[in-house]
């Protein structure tokens, strides 16, 4: 590069740098922003689960309807099968006077046996004739003193799974050096059907089996059987869960104590309910083929005892009609908790939260009058159901809503604008709205505004509206803060609410900011 070109090049660079170093004011312009910050809708659904609220149509009051089980009974209360072990020992006995070689291809032992389940109940007299399980295991083990491998074929002739008799074929190892040969097989009892009436069809708690023992092809040498040899068969049934059962379920008494929560957070302040038209019922459905006798000891509403003329005492509920595993008919007992002489509505005036009930249920109070034809299906457990229906006609006095909306710190330079809070209400009561905007600055600046919304209407829909304005500048908006909204209502006497009432809270920001670009 020649010297002149270099000088020219450097000069251009120098002049360019001088130009670029010239003082330049930052570019700036105003931007007008209008953004939604919060859009919240406060309705009855915000506090009362939809499943409980039945909206009132045509201006009728909404109703709080609870219809749910007390969950007093469950499948575990239906005849329980304990873990059971059945043991049988079969010996050659005195038939053999001398030791004989184990025959090939011919069973040298064929035994049919019936085993009795004896531990079903202590004193209730319970027995079973048919049983269908939906869970459980059976461990089948054979212990042999024979000094050769035995091939066993074992069949539980009273049990079917999928319509087939359970048949097990397996080999038992030989006894060696005085140690018996043992073999074990596990069977899943899910879906197992037991006919427990035995060979003659009139027994109960009986399990029949048949097995044969023969020389196994695995034996390489001849072995001998003596009159001292024996086979011990053990059946261990565990964790059996009943699906369906038939028999006699015994004279059993079951205690229950249960609680239901209507609404755990009372949505309304100091409510006084007008309970005209309210309903409170207790309903029991006996869906098992056994008689029930219910004894109610306690009914509490928010911890206070309900006084009732007929509730406490024995209530007999006849058995349900089952034919061939189909529920033909069942019996229902309904007790009106609000009948004359009851104080339950007095206890419900302040919006009840919890109901507690305790008592006992006696199965087969008249003994085995069905002659072993009690029937239970775990899909049809007796239900103790509470039905409460409260019309939304009430008086209120106090804070109905307290909500905090967080505004994050915002980089809106030289902001000049307003925070707009729109309140729209269809509640048929006056609503006092207090809004505090607490700035996240060092001194916790509070900007407080309030307003009063006139009574609106949800039917016909005539919302009342109020607008709150909080002036904002950069110092207030930059650190962010919290908007505390408190809504207070007060009624003169009971007021009807249709359930469609709502209060809409909208927070918007409106203003201009100065955008600067260096």
């Amino acid at each position, binding site marked *: 590069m020649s010297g002149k070109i270099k000088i020219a090049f450097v000069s251009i660079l120098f002049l360019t740098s001088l130009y670029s170093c010239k003082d330049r004011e930052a570019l700036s312009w105003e931007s007008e922003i209008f953004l939604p910050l919060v859009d919240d809708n406060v309705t009855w659904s915000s506090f009362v689960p939809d499943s409980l609220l039945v909206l009132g149509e045509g201006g009728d009051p909404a109703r709080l309807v609870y219809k749910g089980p007390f969950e007093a009974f469950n499948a575990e209360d239906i005849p329980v099968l304990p873990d059971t072990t059945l043991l049988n020992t079969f010996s050659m006995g005195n038939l053999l006077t001398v030791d004989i070689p184990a025959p090939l291809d011919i069973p040298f032992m064929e035994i049919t046996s019936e085993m009795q389940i004896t531990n079903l109940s202590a004193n209730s007299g319970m027995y079973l004739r048919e049983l269908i399980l939906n869970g459980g295991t059976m461990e089948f083990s054979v212990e042999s003193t024979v000094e050769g491998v035995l091939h066993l074929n074992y069949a539980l002739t009273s049990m079917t799974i999928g319509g087939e008799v359970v048949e097990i074929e397996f080999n038992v190892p030989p006894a060696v050096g005085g140690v018996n040969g043992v073999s074990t097989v596990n069977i899943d009892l899910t879906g197992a059907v037991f006919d427990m009436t035995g060979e003659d069809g009139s027994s109960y708690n009986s399990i029949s089996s048949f097995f044969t023992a023969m020389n196994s092809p695995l034996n390489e040498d001849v072995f001998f059987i003596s009159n001292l040899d024996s086979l011990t068969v053990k059946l261990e049934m565990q964790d059996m869960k009943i699906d369906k059962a038939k028999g006699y379920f015994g004279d059993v008494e079951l205690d229950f104590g249960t609680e239901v929560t209507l609404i755990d957070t009372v949505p309304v302040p100091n409510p006084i309910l007008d309970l005209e038209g309210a309903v409170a019922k207790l309903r029991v459905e006996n869906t098992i083929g056994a008689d029930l006798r219910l004894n109610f000891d306690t009914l509490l509403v928010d911890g206070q005892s309900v006084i009732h003329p007929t509730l406490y005492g024995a209530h007999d509920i006849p058995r349900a009609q089952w034919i061939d595993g189909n529920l033909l008919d069942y019996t229902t007992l309904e007790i009106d908790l609000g009948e004359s002489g009851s104080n339950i509505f007095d206890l419900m005036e302040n919006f009840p939260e919890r109901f507690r009930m305790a008592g006992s249920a006696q199965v087969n109070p008249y003994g085995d009058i069905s002659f072993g034809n009690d029937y239970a299906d775990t899909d049809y457990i007796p239900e103790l159901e509470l039905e409460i229906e409260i019309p939304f006609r009430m008086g209120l006095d106090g804070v109905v809503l307290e909500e905090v909306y967080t505004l994050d710190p*915002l980089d809106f330079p030289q902001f000049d604008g307003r925070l707009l809070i729109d309140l729209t209400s269809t509640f048929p009561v006056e609503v006092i709205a207090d809004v505090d905007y607490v700035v996240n600055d060092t001194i916790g600046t509070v900007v407080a505004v309030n307003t009063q919304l006139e009574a609106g209407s949800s039917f016909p829909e005539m919302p009342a509206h109020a607008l709150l304005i909080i002036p904002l500048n950069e110092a207030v908006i930059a650190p962010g803060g919290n908007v505390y909204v408190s809504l207070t209502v007060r009624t003169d006497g009971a007021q009807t609410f249709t359930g469609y009432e709502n209060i809409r809270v909208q927070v918007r920001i409106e203003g201009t900011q100065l955008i600067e670009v260096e």
Partner: protein
Amino acid sequence: MKFQTKVSIFIVTLLFTSSITVAASLNPSDSSKVKRSGDASFSVWANQSGNVLSTGFLSSLAHGGFIGHDILDPVLEAHEGGMGFFGGSVGWEKKWAAKPFKGGKWALCGSMGSEILYDSRWTSDLFELIFYGNGGHTGRVDVLSGTGIRMAEFNRFSLGFENAKTRQRLEISLVQRLTGFEWSIPYGYFSVSENADSLDTYLQTEARLHALDGPSTMNIPFGDSLDLPFGFLPAYGIGISGSLPLASETLPIRFDINFSDFGILFEPQGSSVAWFQEGIATTGLPVFGDSLTWESVVEGNISTDSLLLTGSSVKRMALLPYRLSAQFIYEPSPDVMLELGVETGGWMPEPLYTAGVGWTPFDRLAFGVQAKYGGWGRMRPVVWTQFKYSCRRMLVIEIEDPMGLFIGNESSDFTYNRGVTFRLERLAGDGWNARGGRFKSTCKR
């Protein structure tokens, strides 16, 4: 050298060689032998056009300070059709045609050059959102789709043949894109309801940097080197260029069709790609709060409902920045020329229309004025002059929207375009037919 590049060069060479063979085998029917070379030119240009960003507005941005609505309103109102454009090119090109083969009609011709193309476009709604905010038009859906910016540097080399009589010309071009970038919003909108009780926005954007990750060193003239934060990732393409002049033998009219770089660019894998998608809708949900804030939307550090993909591109094919133009020329007298033209391509968002008149008051000097409309810009004047300093050689200077060159001067405040082209031309020699137009005669020596 990459396989793709080798293939491209091979194809060009093959076509070139076969074309020469065909041309050499032609038996000229005209008895007059053409013994001089054809047209040649060397051009350098730089131009910029736009339809909304006036020079005054750009000066205001450059000077800094507060820009109020008195400055912004005319710019916003200038968004005709709801779009703003800004683009242009800077480059050089050399074109030439040799003597015809064996005194025949066909001559080897070629061209080479470099060009930087830049193109940006945006919606008026986006402009309004940036400079005005959304306060003035709540309840309206602000469309962001169609916004984008791209820039690339192309080098090209072409070889072909030109007919000395018909002046038809056809070239095979090998085009290299040295580097470039592009960013666009294929789909996006922003909406705040009239009462500002809901916000609904969606943004889908894609960016590509046609360069390699990692630093590299570029050798620059005078023996120095420059450290770059990225490495070049050239892409190669192949296309055809040429011209098809049609002239009436009885009337003084001509019709020229010119085209360049009709072809495909083969992009190699490895471009950096970022793809971002975000949708925000509030219907009763707080925009501010712990989860989603307007601030986080602005800062782009939101994680909910957003999708950001980054990585390297795979191979793909793209169109070359082709150009196609048609020009009608009428010469009512030997010293007056009227022209009408239309041009498209070259990344221009709209066709560029031209109408002009030329006058040759002296043998060696010609002048002309044109009105151009379209491309990136709005209506602007163009002046040109042509100085013939020898029988075969002349200098052409073309200035687009001359007032736009006086940047910083108030007289240029209402201009939107500017451009300068210098071209040295060597006219075709004896034996070549004149192309006409712009007074492109031939030298009968």
